[in-house]
């Protein structure tokens, strides 16, 4: 192996051997039979047999003679005496080390050469843990170096008055002058945050940050520890390039919708990034305890994601869980408890107002009012709440506050042979729903979760490492049988004036033809209880192949995940009545309106999924002088059997299969010029054998300008300046709906109910159920993304200020869409026309990160701003050609909102007569629309692109943190911009869209057109009811309101106790107390409901505001 020799020669220093011989008995006898062996080999043999450590400089062996000895069962000292006899060296046994020195030279030479001495030392971190693997080198004498052993100890022979450089990746290096007398030194290394990032997570591994040319971003664990159940909720705004929208809050809410660099494909395709946990794709990132996260990384560009082949186009999120750290056991416990409340909750009008407004909607349209004044007055005065009710549903349904708790205990430690990280977490959240005492069940809204993580690393041998990780959680979600968000929906559907919450005689009310009473639904409908059990396991074997060639490793990973969901539903519908009036005795006259089914039903649904993932890879990393090369060749395949509720057919139940061959090569010259190329050859079962495999590739290049010689003069100001660029392709392979697979096959299906026909006289009929084309086959293949990424990295002020800017541009082609341009007279329709690779989109934008970190004697200050702006575009959507260019969806943003342009309200009848005809009833005070095609009729031909849409184009975040002595304060602001929402849908928004007894109204409706004061600016136009169809509630610029917001998402004040004597008594090394708050305030022009909830009706459990008190303890 000539390469290996060459390398050895160029080796800068010689490692001290700290092999796996710990615990071997010392002072054992030596047996040696050597003939003309090199002195070095002879000493090595003694070392090996004795188990002693060896302290030796190769240069000291200059001029040594070959050794020929025959030693039988001698002591170490005797053996060494024989070996070193006549050699130019002497030796000394110190403890369990053999220290070899050059024999003292002639006295006159002694004065010229500084005298050497042996230094014993120990290196610890700030918490007092011993650090292994720390490099101790002598300044100016790079060959003199060693590393610490598992106990953090080292021995090094150094010249007198030398300066030691103590360094370890992830820690700040220290320079220690050794005074002539120092024989024993103790060093404490401080963690260096920037240092930690020197290695970055990339697809299927890590890379040195310096040589990375791809686009990625990471977030620290501490920032993920927000009091929410879902990790996705915690990261919105933290990372440049992630667009996250949290559409609802409270117990059991799903996580945020995440988009890497916004949405870049049509809604029929998956728009979300690929999620990877511990190297295994498609693992959900929610429900992971943030405490267990080692790193959270997003990959954004083609170079970073091409290795994920058909899955990488929407970006990749990688989470690695924490691994064990060698050292004595370190136990950390954290507990926090908080109170939660809604951020926003719209208010409804009261019953009398509702009735008056309904009358107004009738009268203003020439129709009879529905309620007389004295009836309305009865509702107002509450003279008989059974017959003349007046209910504010939100007030009746919700408590002021709910609670939220989190606790975690973890322990990490280990020795050279094995390291462990074990963690146990608990999360609990309750909701603000009121409950009633019901003996047989508790329908409280709450969520509990237990998490566990256990990661073990075993060094089977010096070159073989086995990592076994297992993690999972068990969650239990409890809600009323009617469902969490359903309660909000019902409150917006239930009029305030039709029934009380419950009649005074104890019966439950219902008006026929309207919806269920929300209070009854919440407290009486039974329960739904969902257990989700998830266990994930990884077994990874890493084998160093440096005996073949240095830097080569082979790696195998097998992962197996199971999920089991157990959904128990026990529901009932208590009989409901309506009070028609009172009899002569004053008792309520009740009619049964729904006999219901008062017994609790029993329904148990179980869903289970199974994933198997197999990966094997060859890794190669090596440096040859100024040349750094690395390579990766990887094979993986996955097999996922979906057994979730969404699986409705056999085709959806067939396991999903994927297979990839992945490669990567990187080359760096002199730490200045960086090159990288990736490819993935991916196969999927989605396509015909002809189209089954796709090749995706990328190239990237970088230039570390700051490492150039010409840069030296300004390097003190700008220590780091890098430019990087990448281009490549990646794919997106499936549709959102699991019931649309095997798109290359035509599928017939038997007709549903309602599409059958019967023959025969009543009593002896036969029903015929035919067949229809559920889907026509299409010749389909991948959707492919082509992406450019250009990045600049700049550091200033001793690396305290870091700036990263990236611009990107993406073209997406071959997006799977239906060929919707075929007329329906063909007998086909949008439900069964084939999918084809016909869609095209484009996306471009910019990510910025600016970060400042400053450590001071007594504290620190940090600030980080991130920003992402992206602008996407539908390039080709294959809709039929439009009659007018302004109707064309192509050229606009993906999912662009289309609607009418409002020109204000009609002021006069002449104006109506002279304007284009609007369908339905049109009067003064109604919204006047612009007749874009000038045909005198307002219809869908007059719609055009209006506004932005409810996914923001601009996302930004600002994190501020500081510490002084023991105090720490941090604040995280999240903001979005260039987003708007349409306030014109939903029962509580559109007045009386379902008549007088169905639907509630938000109080915003009171700001309405007033015939007395027709010129006043109002939110609502002339009122109407469902009986008069108007055009007022069309999607139009009238109802479009900006929904930008800036929110103090998170703020925390903490104190770290430093009274050592007190803490020592409790065996605590560190104690931190903190208070924090989530969603503390929001600034937004959108006033109707929480702007983060998005478009639509404002009908969901809102995001919550949380105030938390917590404590974190590190035990000794």
């Amino acid at each position, binding site marked *: 192996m000539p390469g290996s020799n060459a390398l050895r020669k160029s080796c800068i220093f010689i490692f001290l051997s700290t092999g796996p011989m710990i615990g071997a008995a010392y002072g054992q006898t030596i047996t040696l039979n050597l003939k003309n062996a090199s002195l070095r080999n002879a000493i090595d043999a003694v070392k090996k047999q004795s188990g002693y450590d060896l302290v030796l400089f190769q240069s000291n062996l200059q001029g040594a003679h070959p050794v020929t000895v025959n030693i039988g069962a001698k002591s170490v000292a005797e053996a060494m005496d024989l070996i070193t006899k006549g050699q130019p060296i002497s030796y000394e046994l110190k403890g369990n080390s053999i220290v070899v020195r050059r024999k003292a030279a002639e006295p006159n030479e002694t004065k010229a050469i500084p005298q050497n001495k042996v230094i014993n030392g120990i290196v610890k971190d700030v918490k007092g843990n011993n650090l292994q693997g720390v490099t101790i080198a002598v300044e100016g004498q790079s060959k003199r170096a060693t590393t610490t052993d598992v106990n953090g100890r080292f021995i090094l022979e150094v010249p007198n008055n030398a300066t030691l450089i103590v360094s370890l990746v992830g820690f700040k290096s220290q320079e220690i002058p050794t005074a002539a007398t120092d024989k024993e030194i103790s060093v404490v290394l401080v963690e260096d945050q920037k240092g930690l990032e020197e290695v970055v997570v990339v697809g299927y591994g890590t890379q040195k940050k310096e040589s990375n040319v791809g686009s990625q971003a990471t977030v620290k664990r501490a920032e993920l520890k927000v009091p929410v159940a879902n990790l996705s909720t915690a990261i919105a705004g933290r990372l440049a390039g992630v667009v996250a929208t949290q559409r609802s809050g409270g117990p059991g809410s799903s996580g945020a919708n995440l988009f890497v660099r916004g949405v870049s494909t049509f809604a029929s395709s998956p728009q979300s990034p690929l999620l990877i946990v511990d190297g295994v794709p498609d693992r959900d990132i929610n429900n992971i305890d943030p405490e267990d996260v080692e790193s959270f990384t997003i990959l954004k560009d083609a170079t970073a994601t091409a290795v994920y082949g058909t899955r990488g186009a929407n970006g990749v999120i990688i989470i690695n869980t924490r691994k064990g750290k060698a050292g004595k056991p370190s136990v950390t416990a954290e507990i926090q408890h908080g109170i939660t409340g809604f951020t926003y909750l719209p208010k409804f009008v009261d019953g009398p107002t509702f009735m008056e407004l309904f009358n107004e909607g009738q009268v203003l349209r020439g129709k009879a009012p529905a309620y007389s004044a004295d009836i309305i007055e009865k509702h107002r005065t509450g003279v008989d709440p059974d017959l003349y009710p007046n209910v504010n549903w939100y007030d009746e349904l919700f408590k002021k506050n709910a609670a939220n708790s989190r606790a975690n205990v973890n322990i990490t430690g280990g020795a050279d042979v094995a390291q462990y990280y074990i963690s146990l977490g608990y999360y609990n959240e309750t909701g603000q729903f009121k409950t009633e005492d019901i003996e047989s069940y508790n329908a409280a809204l709450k969520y509990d979760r237990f998490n566990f993580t256990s990661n073990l690393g075993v060094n089977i041998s010096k070159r073989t490492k086995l990592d076994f990780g297992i993690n999972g959680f068990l969650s239990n979600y409890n809600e009323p049988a009617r469902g969490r968000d359903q309660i909000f929906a019902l409150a917006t559907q239930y009029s305030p004036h039709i029934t009380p919450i419950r009649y005074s005689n104890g019966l439950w009310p219902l008006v026929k033809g309207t919806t269920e009473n929300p209070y009854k639904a919440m407290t009486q409908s039974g329960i739904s209880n969902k257990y989700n059990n998830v266990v994930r396991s990884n077994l990874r074997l890493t084998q160093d192949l440096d005996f073949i060639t240095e830097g080569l490793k082979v790696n195998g990973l097998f992962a197996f995940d199971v999920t089991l969901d157990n959904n128990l539903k026990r529901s009932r519908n208590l009989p409901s009545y309506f009070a*028609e009036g009172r009899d002569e005795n004053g008792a309520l006259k009740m009619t049964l309106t729904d006999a219901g089914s008062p017994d609790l039903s029993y329904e148990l649904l179980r869903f289970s999924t199974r994933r198997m993932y197999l990966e094997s890879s060859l890794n190669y990393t090596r440096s040859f002088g100024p040349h750094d090369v690395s390579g990766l060749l990887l094979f993986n395949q996955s097999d996922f059997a979906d057994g979730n509720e969404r699986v409705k*057919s056999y085709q959806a139940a067939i396991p999903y*299969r994927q297979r990839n061959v992945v490669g990567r090569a990187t080359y760096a010259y002199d730490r200045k010029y960086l090159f990288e190329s990736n490819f993935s050859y991916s196969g999927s079962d989605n396509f015909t054998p002809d189209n089954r495999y796709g090749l995706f590739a990328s190239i990237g290049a970088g230039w570390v300008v700051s490492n150039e010689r010409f840069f030296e003069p300004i390097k003190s100001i700008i220590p780091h300046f890098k430019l990087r660029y990448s281009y490549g392709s990646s794919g997106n392979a499936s549709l959102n709906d699991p019931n649309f697979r095997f798109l290359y096959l*035509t599928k*017939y299906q038997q007709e549903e109910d309602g599409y*059958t026909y019967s023959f*025969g006289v*009543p009593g002896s009929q*036969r029903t015929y159920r035919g067949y229809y084309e559920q889907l026509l086959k299409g010749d389909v293949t991948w959707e492919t993304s082509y992406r450019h990424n250009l990045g600049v990295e700049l550091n200033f002020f001793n690396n305290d200020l870091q700036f990263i800017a990236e611009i990107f541009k993406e073209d997406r082609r071959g997006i799977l869409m239906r060929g919707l341009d075929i*007329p329906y007279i063909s007998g086909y329709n949008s439900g069964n026309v084939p999918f084809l690779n016909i869609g095209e989109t484009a996306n471009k934008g910019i990510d910025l990160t600016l970060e400042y970190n400053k450590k001071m004697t007594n504290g620190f200050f940090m600030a980080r701003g991130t920003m992402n702006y992206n602008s996407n575009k539908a390039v080709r959507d294959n809709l039929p050609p439009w009659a007018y260019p302004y109707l064309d969806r192509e050229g606009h943003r993906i999912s662009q909102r289309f609607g009418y342009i409002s020109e204000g309200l009609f002021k006069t009848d002449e104006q109506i007569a002279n304007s284009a005809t609007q369908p339905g009833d049109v009067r003064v005070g109604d919204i006047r629309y612009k007749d874009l095609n000038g045909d005198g009729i307002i219809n869908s031909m007059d719609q055009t692109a209006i506004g932005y849409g409810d996914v923001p184009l601009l996302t930004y975040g600002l994190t501020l943190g500081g510490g002084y002595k023991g105090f720490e304060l941090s604040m995280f602001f999240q903001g979005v911009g260039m987003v708007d929402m349409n306030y014109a849908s939903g029962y509580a928004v559109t007045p009386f869209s379902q008549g007088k007894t169905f639907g509630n109204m938000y109080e915003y409706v009171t700001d309405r057109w007033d015939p007395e004061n027709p010129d006043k600016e109002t939110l609502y136009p002339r009122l109407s009811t469902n009986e008069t169809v108007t055009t007022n509630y069309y999607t139009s610029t009238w109802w479009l309101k900006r929904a930008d917001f800036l929110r103090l998402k998170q703020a925390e004040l903490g104190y770290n106790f430093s009274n050592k004597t007190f803490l020592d008594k409790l065996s605590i090394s560190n104690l931190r107390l903190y208070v924090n708050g989530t969603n503390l305030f929001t600034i937004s022009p959108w006033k109707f409901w929480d702007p983060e909830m998005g478009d639509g009706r404002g009908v969901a459990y809102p995001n919550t505001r949380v105030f938390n008190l917590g404590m974190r303890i590190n035990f000794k």
Partner: protein
Amino acid sequence: MKFRNNKIKFLALLTSASLLMQGCNDKFFDAQPDNLLNIESIFSNRSQTENYWGSLYAEIPDIWNQPYSYNYSAISDEIDASNWADGTLNNFNSGAISSDNVPTPYVKQYRKIRQCGIFINNVDKCQELKDADNGEILIKQYKAEAKFLRAYYYWLAMKSLGPVVILPLNEEDAVGDNYQIPRSSWDECVDFVIKQMDEAAADMPDDHTDTQLGRIGKMVVEAVKSEITLFTASPLYNGNTDLSNWRNLDGKQLISATYEASKWGKAATTAKSAIDIAERNGKALFVKNGADAFETAFLSTRNVFWDGYQTEGVWVRPATNRNQWEISSAPRAIAGTAYNGLALVQEFVDDFRMANGQSIQQSSSYDETTYVKQGTPYFDTGTNAMYSDREPRFYAYVTFNGSKIPGAAKSGMTRVEFYSSGNSGKNGAPRDWPKTGYTARKNIHPTFSVNPGVGVNRVAMLIRLSELYLNYAEALNESQPNHPDIAIYLNKVRNRAGLPSIASGLSQDRMREEIRLERRIELAFEGKRYFDVRRWKVADQDGYRQGGDFYGMDMSSGTSLSDPSFHKRVVAVRRAEWKDRFYFMPWGQMEIDRNKQLVQVPGY
């Protein structure tokens, strides 16, 4: 030693990895659904083939699934359902219907048209069916039915859209993917449909009964052709100069502006031929005898819907969601509380004649200000006199204040009370009350009850013999005004309903009015009125007016049965004024966007 050890491990690892790759390589992606059907498999099996055939019928409308699924009564001058919130009904009645919100049943109809073609082209492949007893005959009949249905679905589309796009029969070959096809003219559409139906009839028996009830035979074909020819002769399609500019892009005129009297003649002969086949196969007007002539007429016109379908039903749909109709129209006084919502407008109530055949305007005994002293089997003592002494169908078809409960009564109740505080009035239910003070009563079985649920299983009659009689009388009155059959066939319908024969010597115009009135009453709520007022092109004229104000009794007043404050005509329903574009429904914008050859109805 170590060196070698590692090497072995490495080799073992590599081998196992490559084995894994190799081992599953061949079949890894081969899993695909093995349960997928295709045309070949469907038509290889008799049961599947017959299922395919049977559901070719499935887009035949269920005319009693009212008011939502089949909504023609609620969007014409028959009934109002505006107390309930249905967007489609409101769009029609507010005049807001447009190409953006119009229902698009033609999507399903064209789907069936395609499926009929697929069936015709593939049924011969079914060896199992061929080998069955009478297999060849069955195949011939099935094919003929498919052929009829294909034409019938075109006809359904034509009824609402006017001239439609007719696809070539060998669609796949002729069209490929290019479905840019213009409308055919009305007359071309009719010629095509009639020709197809005639061809189909040649391979059919006259009628099917018992377990085959509902299948198409010659009798049904001829009855449908009677409707088609009657429409085609009518003013909307025959010499309509208002629409002479309705043309395809190439200038083809879609509706003829030239009146052809012969079209009425054809309508008359087709109606007669349909009547002949029906009568030859035993069809007659259903009669159920009662204690007297009045009760006989009442029972005959009421019970025909469950007892008389085999006698009178020319074309029946064996399965119907008649419960939707019964529960929507029956008053709250029904046991279990029905929805009390399908409200007859006063204008329709007024069209029912007195028992002696006079109109309420002609009758001297008609009185809205007094209350009857003595109840009858049809209403209670104290009922307003305006509801007394009316023709028998009034009591069979209309529920009014004081009438007996149409189904099973709530305990303690004997009559329907629509006055404000009454058992089916406005007080006591926030929305389940009829705005006009009347509800529809036709086709509600006397045992009907919501809770406990009681419903008599029955069929829906799509075409009754009485309709054919009226078709014939109408067509004959237009083509041969003095033909004796006009009065004969009109009187068959009148006499069965307990009305005296029509006075002799009426002018053609007077006779036309009588026939049209007879259609309105006899065929009430059966989905005919909406089309009749359109084809007659009279939707803006008195007596046929479809827009504007409609009257009713004052639902917000009244505390007793005989309370005059209730029996007061008030504007109950206000609909948009009629516009001529409402004569046809527009194609949905989706279709206009896709088929660039398709011209929209003028005015949309």
